[in-house]
């Protein structure tokens, strides 16, 4: 752990009564890194973020954000971070513009700076035309976009994104991914995000921590995590199957496993896209005719399955959507 790391967490634990939400985790996030938490609902991702954002106190352990300890100097931590919460945290009785305006004022932006930044972030999330509408009349996706805009208004050094693209349409999601990448690449903002979208973690994050039941089950780059599974799977469909090809393949050192299902061969290897021409050549010189080739790259979904024996997607997406809609009903019932 270097001292210039943006986030250093040592043996962090948080209990809620009997429940251990976060169980003795340690990790660090480097400056400029895009770091992801991946895991099912209740894994402790949001609790971890809330501790790092100074909203919850740890039961044990320490956490440093931008060089400041979260319980001893919360004020200094807050100065350096932006947070986009999983649940909507907007004032629905204010307009979009007012929500951003108030936020920018709280963070001490000058009037001029406020005007330019707010316009900038509003155009980013495509809400310029809706800025004077009361937030209570926004759709779910618009609220989400406004929240992301708000997290960026004060140009934080470290940005926490808790399920940033949940419930957004594919186009807006891509839009936001691009911006997250740009923010991280050009403005060197350190970004910590939680997600249950595998392709989001894969596409965006430099490193991913896979969390389950309050613990990290794995932490590495998406590539290395996937490599743990033994590499890519190539399926060759053969006509005029000739078994000699299998013996030939067995002599190749970069093929890890070979499975023979009638006329199709399943082979695992790394960098399969580079190996395919060779595979075909070997097959054809040994009297086979290749009729089709398919390549399956393992996803983080496969990695999660490998470590926990469960699928993350259905579990997570459903339960969050359920919670959200329950929350919305709750609000309607009250106001």
């Amino acid at each position, binding site marked *: 752990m270097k001292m210039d790391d943006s986030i250093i967490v040592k043996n962090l634990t948080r209990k809620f009564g009997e429940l251990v939400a976060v169980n003795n985790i340690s990790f660090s996030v480097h400056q400029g890194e895009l770091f992801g938490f991946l895991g099912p609902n209740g894994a402790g991702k949001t609790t971890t973020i809330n501790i790092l954002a100074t909203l*919850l106190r740890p039961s044990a352990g320490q956490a440093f954000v931008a060089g400041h300890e979260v319980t001893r100097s919360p004020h200094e931590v807050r100065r350096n971070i932006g947070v986009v919460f999983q649940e909507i*945290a907007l004032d629905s*009785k*204010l307009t979009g513009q007012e929500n951003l305006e108030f936020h920018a004022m*709280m963070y001490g932006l000058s009037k001029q700076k406020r005007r330019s930044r707010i316009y900038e972030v509003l155009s980013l999330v495509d809400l310029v035309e809706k800025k004077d509408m009361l937030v209570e009349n926004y759709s779910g996706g618009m609220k989400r976009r406004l929240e992301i805009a708000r997290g960026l208004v004060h140009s934080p050094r470290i940005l926490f994104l808790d399920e940033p693209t949940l419930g957004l349409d594919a186009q807006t999601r891509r839009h936001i991914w691009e911006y997250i990448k740009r923010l991280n690449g050009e403005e060197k903002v350190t970004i910590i995000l939680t997600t249950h979208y595998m392709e989001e973690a894969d596409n965006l994050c430099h490193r991913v921590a896979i969390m389950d039941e309050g613990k990290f089950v794995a932490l590495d780059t998406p590539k290395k995590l996937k490599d743990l599974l033994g590499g890519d799977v190539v399926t060759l469909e053969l006509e005029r199957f000739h078994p000699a090809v299998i013996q030939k393949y067995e002599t190749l050192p970069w093929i890890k496993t070979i499975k023979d299902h009638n006329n199709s061969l399943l082979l695992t290897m790394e960098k399969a896209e580079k190996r395919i021409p060779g595979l075909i050549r070997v097959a054809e010189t040994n009297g086979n005719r290749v009729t089709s080739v398919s390549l399956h790259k393992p996803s983080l979904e496969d990695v999660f399955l490998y470590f926990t024996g469960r699928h993350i997607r259905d579990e997570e997406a459903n339960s969050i959507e359920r919670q959200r809609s329950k929350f919305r009903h709750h609000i309607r019932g*009250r106001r």
Partner: protein
Amino acid sequence: MSYIAIYVLWLREMKRFWRAKSRIVGALAMPLFFLAFLGLGFNRMGISGLSPGINYISFLVPGILGMSLLFSSTFGGLSVLWDKEFGFMKEIMVAPVSRVSIVLGRIAGGVTTALIQATMIMAVAMAMGFRPFSWLLFSLSPIIMILISACFLGLGLSFASQMKDLQGFSIVMNFVIFPLFFLSGALYPMDNFPHWLKIISFLDPLTYGVDGLRSVLIGASSFALSLDLIVIFISALGMVILGAYLFERSESL
């Protein structure tokens, strides 16, 4: 201390108040009904303990002002719970501003809305024929009203800091706000209380608030104005400090 944060939270409260017309009507309805029906209903009955020359409606006006300040301020303090419920609290709590300025911003907003409501009630009372006995002393009434309001905003905040959600709201309402209201002598002279109850009512800050308002509005009171001012000032200070302390200490989620 962040003055801009105080201003932002105050401004937010003003915008919300201005946009929630139905809330204003709702908040005014109860005190005005009390004033109209109790006032007209009891005005002709000889209520013992009233100072000579003071009719019941005049006696009631400062009490109803106190009531309106008590309710709207305690609710104002408790409104932190709504922000917790709707998530906006997190947004406030991650902002790099001192917790004290958050508390002061809320109190500034709450005091302003409570004062606006009290002014409206005063206007209605005047339309009903109420006249302060001295305009010079009348000018002191906003100070007393601000102190009453700050005191109960502090109380509401203290409770809100100890509660996770809106579940405890009705408990606070029934076991704190209503007793404080009835004990204060807002509706009747405290001299009619049995001795032991009178002693309890001496512990209620609102007693001094209402009594102070009577001093400056109708010129008839149980205690000296200076005592009322001192007690309500100390109560307001104490409650605001307690509210700020508990708010600071509590977890934001």
